[in-house]
């Protein structure tokens, strides 16, 4: 057991540093000859029509919303999963009620057609 999280910051710096150093070494070794045609967006040889930064299919958006709801609620289950042996029957029943609400939410989204891919 250790609650000292400083190592995460150090690993973060080492990880970023490793990638940047690799890019630097590659930058010293590789050629650099950009051209107008070479820097075009790749679209199987055809000239690209319009930007791809456009408004996008709402189907992805609904899945993202459902994900946020479920993922946040699942985080509440973590403390319970660690401690429920000590908490006994009360915590078990209480968490089943919580799970029932979660499952009800899933069934609701399902019946509303939010899980249908369009």
């Amino acid at each position, binding site marked *: 057991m*250790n609650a*000292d999280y400083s190592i995460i910051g150090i690993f973060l710096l080492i990880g970023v540093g490793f990638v940047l150093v690799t890019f630097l070494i590659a930058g010293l070794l*590789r050629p650099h000859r950009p051209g107008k045609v070479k820097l075009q967006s790749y679209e199987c040889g055809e000239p690209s029509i319009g930007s791809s930064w456009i408004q996008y299919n709402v189907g992805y958006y609904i899945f993202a919303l459902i994900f946020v709801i*479920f993922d946040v609620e699942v985080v509440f*289950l973590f403390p319970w*999963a660690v401690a429920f042996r000590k908490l006994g029957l009360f915590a*078990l029943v209480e968490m089943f009620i919580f799970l029932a609400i979660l499952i009800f939410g899933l069934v609701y989204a399902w019946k509303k057609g939010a899980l249908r891919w369009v």
Partner: protein
Amino acid sequence: MLEFDKVMLELYGFLAAWCAARSIPLIWLDLTVMIIAGLIMIGVLSLAALFLVWWERKVSAHLQDRLGPMRTGTHGVLQTLADGIKLLQKEDIVPSAADKRVYFWAPVVAFVAAYLAYIVIPFGKGLIARDLNIGILYIIAITSFTVISLLMAGWASNNKYALLGGMRSAAQIVSYEVPLTISVLGAVMLAGSLSMVDIVEAQGPYFWKWYWLPQILGFGIYFISATAEANRTPFDLPEAEQELVAGFNVEYSGMKFAMFFLAEFVNMFTISAIATTLFLGGWQPPLPGLAFIPSWIWFMGKTLFLVFVLMWFRWTYPRLRVDQLMNFAWKFLLPLAFLNLILTGLGVYFFG
């Protein structure tokens, strides 16, 4: 046999005394130890990725009755190294329409997100960078950053294929994240701890006491969801070569592409390592009599076996359609994961 963690403690005690004699603050020693651990982990991961790329090519080849790379070194063992040196010299092409800053940082985020998970993965008895008390929750949090890097790459490239690939992988990873998190909870409930070392030690050195047996449902859900998280076949829609040419990384070249490639193989190793830790007893031998074989060999053996299973999947199952993919996550795996959670709760309460 020498116990690795005891040797490390002895060495640390010796160095601490050495520092105290020269009145150097202990924080510098701790800092040095952490930096060395980080550098060792970079080395281990680079070697593992070099090996896994070669292995993937060999396994694919032999499953298809081919030989695979044979020319560079014995049975092509140096092939990945040669490929890496080639990629190092490749021109770095940044499309003029791209968002340059986001385009640059996306591979950095991809690699760092994959690398940070290795703080808490126990490679053997005492072979762990830092046994954080939130272990598995930390891994789930850190590996979620992969989605951000894929979205960054897809969006910044300003390429239609890249954007489609990035969006698809975001939708897919986000969907499979939920059953994955819930299936991990089963092992946490049995062990009563989030720390990776505690979970391994709770399983003990008997293979029938490991959590794959009481958590057979959870293990299945975890492994399927993790395959989807790592964008492996049959869930490789974001990279579908035949329809999206390569998905989110189509505009990337040279070392930036290599970073995405490296991160992908590191992620593959990560999900197998987590599955080994949670469900296959981590570094524990299958029988107490086999404890004379060092613990890290058991860990690597189990993990590499699971990696092999992932490669086997790739040449066995055809790719799913995108609506099947989403239905499978939300309408099948998620209810099943809830069922597993309820059954585990009841089981631990009445029998545990």
